[in-house]
C-alpha cells in the first residue's frame, strides 16, 4: 500500500535475493560477497526490489469512474520496487562494469569511437529543443525545422550532393533508405531489376539490406591489395543489375582507387551507385562523394559526427542523394518557403517518394548533437579531423608493422588492418590476443572483420587520441605481440592469452550455453 506521497505504508515483504548468485560470485572472487575492492558485484534489479516500495513520489489519483472499457488490468505485473538511492546505486554499479571512450582508447575498427563532446549533450537538452513535441503546429517549431535544414545544408556541402533524407534512424536504416530509393527509381522507369553487387569486404548490413529490398546479392571479390576487383565487377555488370553497394573508404581501411571507374561502370548499365559512408570520417573535408559519381550514401552521425554510441544506439543515418534519385527520397522532409520552414508529410506533395520509414521526422536529438559538433569544428576543423584520423591510423600501422602483420601495403586511411599471420604457430588466436588486451586495460580492436583476411584485427584510433595515448597503446600491442611470438614452438606463456581476460569483471563467457539454452529474461523463483 502507498500513502499520499506514494510511499509504502507497510513493511515490505522479505527481500527477494538470489543467495546462489552471491555464493558463486564469492567463491570465484575469494571474498564474502564477491566484491573485489572497487569492483562490486551487482545482482539483478529484480533481486533487489521489494513489493510496494517506489522511487517516485506521486499524488493520489483523481477519484473518477473508470472508462477503461472493462479492460482494467487484473493481477500483478512483477516489477520490483526500489527507492531512489537503491536505483541510483544499482545503475552506477552497472556502469562501472563497462569500458568507455571516456576511459581509454577504443580502437574498434569501422566504429569510429571518438570523443563525445558534452556541449552537444547540453544543447540537446535545452528547453525548446529537448522538450518539443513532433506534432506541434509547425508555426510553433520554426526553430526546430530551421535546425534540421541547417544540418542538411552542412551535410550537402560536406558531401557535395544536392539532397539529403534526414529521417533514417541508423546506418542500416540509411542503407535501406538508399536501396529503396534506387528500387523506386528503377520501378518508375518500368525496369525493376534483380541483382545488387556487393564486395566481399562489405559490412553485413549491406547484403542484409539488399535482401530486404528483394534483391539477389551478388558478391564481388577483392583484389590482393584489398580493393574491389574492377575486372570481376565489370564482368558482373548487366541490364539486371540495380546497384552496387561499395564502402569507401572500405572496411580494410583503404580508399577505393577505382571508385570513379566503378561509378562509370554501374551507370553504363543504368544502375545506381550506393556508397556506404560508415567510414566518412577518413575523408570529411578532403573528398566529396558528389565528385565520385555516387548516387546515394548514408552518413552515421554517431560515427563521423560524434553523437554518443550509448552502448548500442540510438544512431542516426541521413542519406545524401544525387539528382537522379532525390525525388524518390522518403517523407517527411523540410522545405524552405521564403523565411519559413515547412515539413512535407503528405505523399500528394511528393508523388515519387517511396514513402515513410520512421515515425515522426528523424532522430532530432542526434541532429542537434551532430550540428553542434560540426559548428564547433567548422569547415577548417572538419578537414583536420580527417587528416588527424588518417595520420593516427598510419602511425599505428607504422609502429606495429614489424611485430604484427599488416594485411596490405600502406598507406591506409582511418583504420589499420592486420591479420593473424604473426600469430602463426603460437597457439594464440586473434580472439586470445584481443582478450589479452583487456587485461592490459584496453578495449580490443574489431576482430575477424573484414572477412577478406584471416583472423582480422582492425584498429581505428580516431583523431581524438593524443600522441601519448596512441604511444601507450602501441607499447601494449608491441608487448603482447612479442609475448605471443615467444609462444611459438612451445615457449612463452600461452595461458596469458588463452585464459585472458583474468582481470576484468568477468572472464570469458560461455556463449554456447547462452545460445543452446536461452535465458532471455528474469523469472520469479517458484
Amino acid at each position, binding site marked *: 500500500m502507498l500513502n499520499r506521497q506514494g510511499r509504502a505504508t507497510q513493511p515490505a515483504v522479505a527481500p527477494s535475493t538470489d543467495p546462489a548468485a552471491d555464493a558463486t560470485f564469492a567463491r570465484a572472487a575469494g571474498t564474502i560477497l564477491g566484491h573485489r575492492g572497487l569492483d562490486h558485484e551487482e545482482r539483478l534489479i529484480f533481486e533487489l*526490489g521489494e513489493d510496494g516500495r517506489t522511487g517516485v513520489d506521486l499524488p493520489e489519483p483523481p477519484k473518477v469512474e473508470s472508462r477503461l472499457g472493462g479492460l482494467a488490468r487484473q493481477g500483478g505485473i512483477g516489477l520490483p520496487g526500489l527507492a531512489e538511492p537503491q536505483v541510483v546505486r544499482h545503475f552506477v554499479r552497472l556502469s562501472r562494469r563497462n569500458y568507455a571512450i571516456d576511459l581509454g582508447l577504443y580502437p574498434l575498427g569501422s566504429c569510429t569511437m571518438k570523443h563525445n563532446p558534452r556541449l552537444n549533450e547540453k544543447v540537446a537538452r535545452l528547453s525548446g529543443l529537448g522538450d518539443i513535441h513532433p506534432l506541434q503546429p509547425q508555426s510553433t517549431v520554426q526553430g526546430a525545422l530551421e535546425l534540421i535544414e541547417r544540418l542538411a545544408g552542412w551535410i550537402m556541402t560536406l558531401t557535395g550532393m544536392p539532397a539529403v533524407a534526414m529521417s533514417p534512424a541508423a546506418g542500416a536504416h540509411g542503407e535501406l533508405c538508399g536501396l529503396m530509393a534506387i528500387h523506386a527509381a528503377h520501378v518508375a522507369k518500368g525496369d525493376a531489376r534483380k541483382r545488387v553487387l556487393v564486395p566481399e569486404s562489405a559490412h*553485413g548490413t549491406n547484403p542484409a539490406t539488399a535482401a530486404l529490398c528483394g534483391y539477389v546479392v551478388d558478391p564481388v571479390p577483392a583484389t590482393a591489395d584489398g580493393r574491389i576487383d574492377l575486372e570481376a565487377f565489370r564482368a558482373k555488370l548487366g541490364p539486371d543489375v540495380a546497384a552496387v553497394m561499395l564502402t569507401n573508404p572500405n572496411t580494410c581501411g583503404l580508399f577505393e582507387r577505382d571508385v570513379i571507374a566503378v561509378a562509370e561502370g554501374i551507370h553504363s548499365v543504368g544502375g545506381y551507385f550506393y556508397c556506404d559512408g560508415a567510414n566518412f570520417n577518413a575523408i570529411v573535408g578532403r573528398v566529396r562523394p558528389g565528385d565520385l559519381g555516387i548516387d546515394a550514401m548514408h552518413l552515421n552521425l554517431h560515427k563521423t559526427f560524434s553523437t554518443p554510441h550509448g552502448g548500442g*544506439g*540510438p544512431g542516426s543515418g541521413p542519406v545524401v542523394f544525387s539528382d537522379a534519385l532525390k525525388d524518390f527520397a522518403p517523407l517527411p522532409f523540410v522545405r524552405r518557403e521564403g523565411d519559413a520552414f515547412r515539413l512535407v508529410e503528405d505523399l500528394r506533395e511528393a508523388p515519387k517518394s517511396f*514513402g515513410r520509414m520512421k*515515425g515522426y*521526422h528523424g532522430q532530432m536529438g542526434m541532429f542537434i548533437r551532430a550540428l553542434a559538433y560540426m559548428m564547433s569544428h567548422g569547415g577548417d576543423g572538419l578537414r583536420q579531423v580527417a587528416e588527424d584520423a588518417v*595520420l593516427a591510423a598510419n602511425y599505428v600501422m607504422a609502429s606495429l608493422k614489424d611485430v604484427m602483420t599488416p594485411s596490405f601495403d600502406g598507406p591506409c586511411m582511418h583504420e589499420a588492418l592486420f591479420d593473424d599471420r604473426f600469430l602463426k604457430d603460437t597457439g594464440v588466436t586473434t580472439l586470445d590476443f584481443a582478450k589479452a588486451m583487456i587485461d592490459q586495460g584496453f578495449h580490443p580492436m574489431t576482430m575477424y572483420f573484414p572477412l577478406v583476411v584471416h583472423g582480422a584485427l582492425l584498429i581505428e584510433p580516431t583523431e581524438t587520441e593524443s600522441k601519448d595515448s596512441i604511444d601507450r597503446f602501441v607499447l601494449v600491442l608491441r608487448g603482447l605481440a612479442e609475448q605471443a611470438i615467444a609462444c611459438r614452438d612451445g615457449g612463452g606463456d600461452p595461458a596469458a592469452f588463452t585464459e585472458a581476460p583474468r582481470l576484468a569483471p568477468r572472464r570469458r563467457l560461455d556463449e554456447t550455453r547462452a545460445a543452446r539454452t536461452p535465458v*532471455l529474461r528474469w523469472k520469479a523463483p517458484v
Partner: protein
Amino acid sequence: MRYLPLTADDRAAMLGVIGAASVDELFADVPGPARLDGPLDLPPHQGEWEVEKAFRALAGRNLSPSEVPSFLGAGAYRHHIPASVDHLIQRSEFLTSYTPYQPEIAQGTLQHLFEFQSQVALLTGMEVANASMYDGATSCAEAVLMAKRQTRRSRAILSGGLHPHYRDCTRTMAGFVDHGVEALPLDLDGSEDLAAHLGKDVACVVVQYPDVLGRVSDLTALAEAVHAAGALLIVAVTEIVALGALQPPGAMGADIVVAEGQSLGVPLSFGGPYVGLFATREKFLRQMPGRLCGETVDADGRRGYVLTLSAREQHIRREKATSNICTNAGLCALAFSIHLSLLGEAGYVRLAQINHGKAVQAAERLAAIPGVTLVNQGFFNEFTLKLPKDAAAVVEALAGKRILAGVPGARLWPENPAAANLLLVAVTELNDDGDVDALVAALAAEVK
C-alpha cells in the same frame, strides 16, 4: 581546436615514423579529380559559448510544451522524467560505450539489457522481448516482416485504428517487395471487422491498443479468429504507460507486441530518438529481429550476460538475416529501464491511474462544450473530440494563445476529409487543473 589533441610537433613526429613528407601523401589513393584542395564553403570553427548561443536562438523560436498547457500525444507523450534518469544515462560508461561485443568489459550494458528485456516482457505480458528497436513504428514494420517469415504467408491486414506513421512505415518496409500490406481506412463508428479480412494468405493482423483515437477494445475474440485462420496477431502500443492500467496484450492472445517506449524516461525531442519495444512468444524466438541478451556463466562459473542467438543477425547471416538492423536504441532503453525501476510496480500502476483519472476529468469537461462531442467512450489517457469546425485551424488559433490543444486529424490523415474535425487530446500527470481550465475556456471560445 579543442577536440583535437595532436600538436604540429606531434604531427611532424608521427609523419617521421610513417616515413611520409606530408599528410597529403597518405591520401595518395584518392584520384586527383576527387581531391578537394580548397576550403569548403562552411563557417570556421567556433567556441563553446558561440555554439551554445546559436542553439539557444533556435530553441527560442520554438514554443516549448513544458511552458504552456499542452495536450499533444498521438504516439509521443509528455511525462515527468525523474532527475536521476538523465544523470545516470550520462554516466560516461553508458553514454560513451559501444555495442557490447566484448562481454567481459560490457557487463554493465549487458546486465541492463537483460533487465530491460525482462521489464518489457512483464509489461506486455509476453514471454520474451528483444533489446529494443529504433522506435514503435519501425518495430511494427519488423513485426509484420517477422510474421510473414513465421507463417510463410504474404498478406498483412492493418487496422484503420493504427497510427498512420506506423501504417506507413509498415507499408514501406514490410510491403516494399510484395505490396502485401493492406491498410483498412480509419473507422469512426467502431464498425471495423478485421476478422472478415482473414484468409489463407494472411500472415498477420495488426491492431493498436489503445488505438490511435484512444479507443480500447478487448482483443480476445479477434485473437481467436486470427489464430483459427493460422495468422498472428500483432498488437501495437504507442503509450506504454497505458499497460499500468489496462490488461496487457499478452493476456488477450497477442503473438507479437510492439510498442513505443518513449513515455518512460525519454524526452519528446521533436520525435526522436525514441525506443521501440518488441516482445513475442518463445516459440517464435528464432524469427525475432534485433539484438538479444542472454544469461550465461563465465570461466569461473559466475553469472554473466552476452549477446546471443546472433545467428539470426546480419553480421553473421548477411543476406539471410532476419533483419538488417544493427544498432538498437541502447541509451533510450537504459532511460526506459531506469525510469521504470524508479517507479516500481506500485509507482507504475499509480502513474497510470493518475493519467487515466485526469483524462476522464478533462474529457468530461471538454465534451460538455456545446458543439464538441467525444468520439470514444473508453480510453486511457488520450481521447478524440469531434469539433464543429476544422480542427487544424482551431489548433493553430489556440497555439496563438499559447495553448497546445492536441493533434488535429488532418495532421495524421491529410487525405481524409472525415478526419478534418477530429482533435486528439492527451492528458498526462503533468497537466494540472489550470491547464484543463485554459483549454476548456479557449476551445469553447473558438468553436462558439
